[in-house]
């Protein structure tokens, strides 16, 4: 009996003491959660053309909700919509709404939802057959409409015009935007009348544009509940026994050629297809993942990661410097090969390292790549006016439904828009594979790596949920020390 008790007590003493001073499981109400983020966001509008849309979406999700949601296990859940169904063609979908109020106290109606969705996707005909039902008529079949509509761009927003003519955006979410200084600070306050129950924390405050490196060096993270980490900072923080949560390698780092074969910018020639292919074969993706991303990333050959589809390994070709040299020589026989101007995100030190590494690899194949930093490469509008031949983009994984994720990636890339209807109509994974394979055949997009999202969490923060794709779910968030 005594022998049995000893290990039991050891286990149990862990149970009773490991949690330290505080350790109860039941959430506490109150307190302000302060979050430090690197990117600067000017607007919370889910449809704004932001430099950092993924960061915008994380904050906007507190205020603006979608009809459906996907949970941490990838299961589809009702959100503002309680139920939904499609006609046989999967072209017309109907969503039955929950009885919910906007944050200004007005009732969410089907007409509000139809107006919001029409703005999100002008190709859809949205109507309100009755006060609680929204009908969406798409130009073609959409197999995964319920998953698609969980994307942040389909968040329901009531748009009004203020006295000064400024746009006022009203949502139904668990937090209201209470204070904001665009690009610097957003503060959200608990919505006392939220349909899902008042959230636990009184406030969530985002401090933007923080130099994380400086904060880490100065060990000034104490007042914060969470801060974003870049991949190269994870090890340092972990070595200090701090809590780090990382997503699966979900963001796509890809080299994107801006000029199409025909109909591009006047006076700007597209990079020859053989050179694009050669560059793809010359990049040492394994070295980038292992060294620059310290084995936290995964070499990419597809637009979607292997862990999401299970088929990425069948896409793309392995590094082949000899073949790259042959292609380069072949191209040189017909065209003048100019240096490739490669723009990367000026504010991302890792993007600079990757771009420089690509330039080194390209030189091995006889291709000149000239990397330089640009400040607005993530904005589609700003990108169209960039003078570079190619850009190094980091694209978030917006969904764990492969079809929705691929359509969102296409949208983020601003390329291959004609493929969207085929993606949304794809009924089988084989169809999606075929589409992705064809998209990559042109070599206008060269996948380089899939990179995880990382986050440092203060030990007093609870229920911070980071989903596999890096999305945050903060609806159950609470902090110790609150009342």
């Amino acid at each position, binding site marked *: 009996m005594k022998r049995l008790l000893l290990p*039991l007590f050891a*286990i*149990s003493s862990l*149970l009773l003491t490991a949690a330290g001073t505080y350790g109860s*499981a*039941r959430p506490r109400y109150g307190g302000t959660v302060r979050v430090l983020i690197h990117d600067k966001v000017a607007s919370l509008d889910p449809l704004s053309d932001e430099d950092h849309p993924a960061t915008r979406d994380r904050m906007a999700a507190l205020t603006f909700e979608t009809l459906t949601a996907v949970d941490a*296990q*990838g299961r589809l859940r009702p959100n503002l919509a309680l139920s939904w169904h499609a006609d046989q063609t999967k072209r017309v979908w109907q969503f039955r709404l929950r009885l919910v109020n906007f944050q200004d106290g007005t009732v969410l109606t089907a007409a509000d939802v139809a107006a919001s969705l029409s703005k999100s996707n002008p190709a859809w005909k949205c109507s309100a057959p009755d006060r609680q039902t929204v009908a969406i008529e798409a130009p073609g079949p959409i197999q995964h409409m319920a998953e698609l509509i969980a994307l942040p761009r389909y968040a329901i927003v009531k748009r009004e015009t203020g006295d000064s003519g400024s746009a006022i955006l009203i949502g139904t979410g668990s937090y209201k935007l209470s204070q904001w200084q665009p690009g610097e600070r957003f503060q959200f306050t608990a919505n006392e009348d939220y349909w899902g129950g008042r959230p636990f924390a009184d406030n969530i405050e985002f401090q933007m544009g923080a130099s994380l490196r400086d904060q880490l060096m100065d060990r000034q993270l104490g007042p914060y509940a969470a801060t974003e980490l870049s991949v190269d900072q994870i090890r340092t923080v972990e070595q200090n026994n701090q809590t780090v949560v990382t997503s699966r390698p979900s963001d796509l780092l890809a080299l994107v050629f801006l000029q199409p074969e025909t109909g591009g910018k006047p006076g700007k020639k597209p990079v020859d297809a053989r050179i694009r292919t050669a560059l793809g074969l010359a990049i040492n993706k394994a070295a980038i993942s292992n060294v620059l991303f310290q084995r936290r990333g995964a070499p990419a050959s597809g637009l979607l990661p292997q862990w999401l589809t*299970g088929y990425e390994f069948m896409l793309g070709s392995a590094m082949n410097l000899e073949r790259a040299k042959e292609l380069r020589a072949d191209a040189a026989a017909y065209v003048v090969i100019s240096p490739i101007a490669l723009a990367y995100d000026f504010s991302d030190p890792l993007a600079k390292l990757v771009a420089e590494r690509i330039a080194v690899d390209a030189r091995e194949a006889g291709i000149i790549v000239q990397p330089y930093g640009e400040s607005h490469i993530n904005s589609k509008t700003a990108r169209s006016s960039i003078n570079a031949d190619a850009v190094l983009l980091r694209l978030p994984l917006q969904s764990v439904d492969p079809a929705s994720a691929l359509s969102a990636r296409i949208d983020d890339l601003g390329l291959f828009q004609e493929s969207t209807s085929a993606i949304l109509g794809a009924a089988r994974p084989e169809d999606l594979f075929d589409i992705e394979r064809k998209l990559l055949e042109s070599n206008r997009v060269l996948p380089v790596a899939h990179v995880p999202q990382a986050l440092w969490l203060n030990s007093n923060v609870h229920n911070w949920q980071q989903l596999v794709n890096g999305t945050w779910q903060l609806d159950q968030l609470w902090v*110790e020390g609150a009342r």
Partner: protein
Amino acid sequence: MLKTALKLWFCALLMVALPAASAVQQEPSSNTVAVSEFVQSVLSRAASPSAVAVSFQNVSSLSPEAQEALQNAVLNGFRAANVKLVKAEQAVADVQITFSEDWQGYVWLANIQMGSSSQLVIKRLSHQQRAASSRAPTLTLRKISVWQQEAPILDFFQDNQNLLILEPDTLSLYASDSGQWRPRQTLGIPHQHSWPRDLRGRLEVHGSEINVFLPGARCTGKISPPALDCNASDDPWPIDPGQLVAFFSPRRNFFSGLLAGQDGGASVAPFFSGAAWRNGDQRFWLFTGTDGRARLFQNELATPVATMNGWGSTLAAVHSTCGSGWQILTSSPADTVRLDSVQAVEFTGHEALPVSAPIDFSGPVQALWTAGNYSQVVNGVQQSQTSGKYEAFTLTIVCNQ
């Protein structure tokens, strides 16, 4: 001669089939229906070839043994469909099969090469849930699952004839019918304001009388005929039936600390959960405070005799024939989005000593309430992280030999 040959053949078949079957059983992807469907899809896409060459690759976490078993099953699937397995140069179609996986399960891919054209078949399968681990116990906690459902469960009551499930907006009544619970009646719980998060509720049944306690609301009714009447109310909730009741914050998830009843009239720090028990002539109360500290009171509720850190916030007392006769079942100090466990402890003096191994749960334990005529049962509710479902369960103490 024939008999001997048959015996040898049968032995050889067993030698091949048994380990393979065992490996197949261990691995979730390897079920015969899935294999059969996969092979049929390949044959259908390859226009039913008479002879195929098949090769395999594994880029998943399948063990080599499971992979071999799966390969054999697939090859047998082709043979069963009267397709000859031949070398590549003799084949109508060259089928390259890869066992891959995504974050939710296994993915089998077949790349079918026929001349210059190629086709791809993809089949997805879910990972099997891992069996929950268990540790060697001293006293043993016995968990019995009572009910599972998608909708949240706040509390429940069961006897031989009735099962009552308290949900945020309804009280569902079920009647026993040949060992099965059949729906009998659903009674609405109207409420003016939206419920607070981490909604809690308490259901008490005495005879046919129903009492429901919710934050800022109280319902009374009867099981037969089924009826429930709800009103806004700040009536205190029972902690130690007949002895101690406590006021619950109407828009929050905790008790305010104000106590009433025979033992009441006192005030303690706001708490999530409370338990009361006796040991001889000594009376004890334990409250898990919202500040993360558990406070033990002895004989009077004015000043705690011990304050402890690191406790889970949900607990309940249970009466048994083991040890001191009373144990406290407490949840683990984990977040509510993680896995949880419940463990029994006893107090020796003012010190809490674990007396059972923790029993693991697949999600957060959201409620523990003392139940039964002699407090010999604890009713609990958990939400599974894997299925998302809520489960009502009972916990009892079994004394070890």
